[in-house]
């Protein structure tokens, strides 16, 4: 069991609310990702759940029990740190075994659990090494191994992949996904990378300035962003935004349209525009255009589109795909 619930959680640092009244329920076994720009409070929120920081007001419930005043060592959670935070003076074996030793488990049980974790994480050959003798990916695995041997109620990941190079990041992303599949334990994962969030999460919590901007599945966030902030934050390249007459005639202050939902024509369309640059990715082409009276937009075209800088074209948003927002930046209509 490992459901986690936050009730009106608030955290002040020196009179300033870093977390401003967050309500949230993470179901048992769910993979939840906290995402947001830096400074949005996502790591703080994770540390509040871990017990490494005190909440200023509100409640943290684990399996329905209020743990707001319980120390981190008593909450039954495991955490993987951004820096891995391995014990530099201990071998891999002792790093993994440390929590079990602290829990005074019998030697043979410890031995067995360490062996099992090392097996899962391909660390069996490295058990006697010190952390400094390992590569980044291996250290990452040790950190995860240290977390799993405790059989925690939930895993907390604090930007665990940000110190790895791009290729390794994709691989570890898959490994953490597999781990979640096989352990079926609750995981809370903090990242600033919306691609990581979209690919891994059952549920995404988008945070902005210490408040929850939206909670939902990846596709919900993509298809129905509840506000401009989420609309802009989720999706790559970012959503195109237009204000003025083209928004007004659709009954909104602001409209948004994703780059992949814009049609291009050389002869006719809603918005006349000038091509600034075409980025050829092979599978896709991102055409950056300057729309007259609106400003820069990105258009995503399948395959190899032959646009040249300076060329005049017309771009037209696909009507059903348009997101409409009111003056407060909140979603209008369905």
């Amino acid at each position, binding site marked *: 069991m490992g459901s986690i619930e936050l009730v009106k959680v608030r955290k002040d640092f020196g009179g300033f609310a870093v977390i401003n009244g967050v309500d949230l329920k993470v179901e048992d076994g769910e993979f939840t990702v906290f995402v947001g720009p830096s400074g949005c409070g996502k790591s703080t929120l994770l540390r509040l759940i871990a017990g490494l920081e005190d909440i200023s007001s509100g409640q943290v419930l684990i399996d329905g029990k209020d743990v707001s005043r319980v120390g981190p*060592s008593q909450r039954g959670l*495991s*955490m993987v740190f951004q820096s891995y935070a*391995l*014990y530099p003076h201990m071998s891999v074996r002792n790093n993994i075994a440390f929590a079990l030793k*602290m829990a005074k488990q019998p030697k043979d049980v410890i031995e067995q659990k360490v062996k099992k974790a090392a097996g899962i994480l391909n660390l069996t050959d490295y058990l006697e090494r010190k952390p400094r003798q390992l590569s980044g990916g291996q250290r990452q695995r040790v950190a995860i191994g240290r977390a799993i041997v*405790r059989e925690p109620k939930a895993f907390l990941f604090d930007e665990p992949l940000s110190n790895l190079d791009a290729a390794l990041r994709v691989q570890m992303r898959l490994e953490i996904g597999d781990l979640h599949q096989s352990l079926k334990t609750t995981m809370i994962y903090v990242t600033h990378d919306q691609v990581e969030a979209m690919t891994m999460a059952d549920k995404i919590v988008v945070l902005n300035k210490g408040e929850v901007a939206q909670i939902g599945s990846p596709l919900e966030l993509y298809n129905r962003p509840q506000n401009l902030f989420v609309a802009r934050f989720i999706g790559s390249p970012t959503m195109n935004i237009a204000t003025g007459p083209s928004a007004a005639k659709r009954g909104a202050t602001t409209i948004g349209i994703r780059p992949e939902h814009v049609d291009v024509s050389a002869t006719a369309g809603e918005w006349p525009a000038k091509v600034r640059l075409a980025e050829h990715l092979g599978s896709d082409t991102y055409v950056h255009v300057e729309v007259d009276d609106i400003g820069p937009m990105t258009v995503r075209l399948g395959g190899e589109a032959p646009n040249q800088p300076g060329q005049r074209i017309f771009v037209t948003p696909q009507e059903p795909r348009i997101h409409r927002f009111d003056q407060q930046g909140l979603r209008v209509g369905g």
Partner: protein
Amino acid sequence: MALQQTVGKRVGMTALAWIVGFLIFFPILWTFLTSFKSELDAFSLPPKFLFFHWTTENYAEVQSRSDYFSFAWNSIILSVGANLVGLIVGVPAAWSMAFAPTKRTKDLLLWMLSTKMMPGVGVFAAVYFIFQYLGLLDNRIGIGFLLFMANLPILIWMLYTYFKEIPVDILEAARMDGASLVNEIIYVLTPMAIPGIASTLLLCIILSWNEAFWTLNLTTSHAAPLTAFIASYSSPEGLFWAKLSAASTLAIAPILVLGWFCQKQLVRGLTFGAVK
């Protein structure tokens, strides 16, 4: 890549540096050499630098006449003991200031530093009376306590600067792993900070070993360390240079070696982390 100097300039600079270094070191070298001379050779003019009859009789003499080892033993007990106790009190304090700082931590650190700056002589009479009242004059516990207190600010400061370099993540990881505070300090912090703790201890031992106000004034024989023992040679009745040299060599050699080992930490400790 450092700039390349001409070989000539480099040789010149080397010669100059070695001469300066030698001159600064010379009194110590001279003491060392003299300690192996006979008293006659020690006084001879012109001085005999290397070509004299080498003898170790002074060392034997120093011991038999003045019971050198009981003073040396006091020095060791006092400087090591006082600072080991210092570590027991200081490590938790430094942990607290490095990893659980409050708004007042900075002021607290600076206040500790300022207690170090109180000249001992300022409160000499008061301390003397307190010691007399408690029966601590010429007592190892008493003088050890003084040395402990005198070093505590420096000890905490040094430990603090070392602890600050340990990523707090690792201690938090230990907390997440279920370690209690005591276990966190014993199994995680201390092993990681061993080099820092060791050099702190070394520097503090050096400072205690050489402390020469309280040790001269509050001890006579029973608890007297080497500072007091050497001072007894200043009495004018006999000029036993060779024996003085032997005693001095014995008194400074161990600390010189320790000091050479921890020069870098010395800078940090004595400047309270202001110069690294």
